[in-house]
């Protein structure tokens, strides 16, 4: 009486790229640490979630009622305000878009301020305003390809920070194209695959994003 082969559940977890060092410690189940995590204030729990891969952080909503709503974290995540052009494309673009293109306005001060996002999938256009200082969040839950036609300065803290925050909102993004201005292009690969850019999202680390280019 053999059961039919079924797909293993939670297969995603081992697949997610975490740094092999500290993350590979065996879990300690000592009862001494019981409840210590639960005793921390929400603000601290959110700070912890901030350092987790977006996808894993999102699954913590399933832990208990208290954890529902802690993620996306209001602080330090990118805030996208959208305004739709034409018919009901906002939700489409947020929920259904698989590819997005972000163009920058001329002579910007930093990577993100105000841009147009074109979702090729749903043929919709959005104005995106990134306002990290305001506590609200929006996710591009299905976005797999992101094209950034912007002046990205890999050594600029604001650029690195903005890109990391953008990635935070694109939990399943696989490919990212960065188009850089000429003088900057020589300092970083113009196309990055999941190994580099997506890992930066998982680590929530601006340092990881910037360090190769920061000489």
């Amino acid at each position, binding site marked *: 009486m053999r059961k039919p082969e079924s797909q293993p559940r939670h297969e995603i977890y081992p697949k997610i790229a*975490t740094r092999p060092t500290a993350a590979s410690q065996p879990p300690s189940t000592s009862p001494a640490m019981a*409840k*210590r*995590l639960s005793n921390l204030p929400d603000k601290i729990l959110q700070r912890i979630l901030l350092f987790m891969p977006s*996808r*894993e952080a999102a*699954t913590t909503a*399933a832990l*208990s009622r208290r954890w529902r709503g802690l993620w996306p974290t209001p602080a330090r995540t990118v805030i996208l305000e959208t305004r739709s052009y034409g018919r009901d494309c906002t939700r489409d673009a947020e929920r259904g878009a698989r590819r997005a293109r972000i163009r920058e306005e001329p002579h910007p001060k930093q990577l993100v301020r105000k841009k147009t996002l074109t979702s090729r999938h749903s043929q919709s256009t959005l104005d995106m305003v990134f306002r990290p*200082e305001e506590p609200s969040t929006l996710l591009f839950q299905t976005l797999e390809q992101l094209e950034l036609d912007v002046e990205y300065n890999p050594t600029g803290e604001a650029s690195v920070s903005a890109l990391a925050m953008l990635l935070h909102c694109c939990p399943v993004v696989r490919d990212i194209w960065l188009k850089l201005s000429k003088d900057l292009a020589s300092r970083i690969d113009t196309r990055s695959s999941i190994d580099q850019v997506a890992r930066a999202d998982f680590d929530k680390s601006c340092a990881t994003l910037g360090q190769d280019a920061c000489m």
Partner: protein
Amino acid sequence: MEVDKGKGEAEETRKVAEADRDTVTLKSSDGKLFEVSKEAAARLSTVLAGMIAGGSIDDNGTDLKQIGSEALENVVDYCNKHANSIPSAALISSSISFNTAPFKEPEEWERKFVDRLSHDALFDLVEAANFLGMERLLDVTCHKISEMMKGKSPDQIREVFNIKNDYTKEELEEIRQELAWAFYDD
């Protein structure tokens, strides 16, 4: 007589030194005293910076009733180590607020610093850092906890951190539907 005079002088110089000394003394909840560089304390802790600026630092030991001696020792240790490490410009940049400041990877010594802590000591330190408004230490310790949670399913996290599942089956299913992109393998 000679000895007494010497003592008196020593006392005098000690007092003078204390007036403009460059350390502050902190007292833990259980009465233990710790010295920490005034500069490092002011730079790393918004609360201590406020106390130093406001003149509410007690030379005989500023009472920190919420912090036990083990946690305070770690705080002081962190401040001293931080003061001795090469100052990273990014860490002391004050132009970027917490909300927008990018997170800097823990440096090698910071990683070692939190790795050696027991679970209880780690959580004590998180609470102390939170109480003292030590943003960087809070980042480093929270980062460590996030690493303990990484790569685990909700069930595993619940087990390790003893979190009670107060959802009904239906609610849990609803969440899995809602966050299908995160649970996509199901």
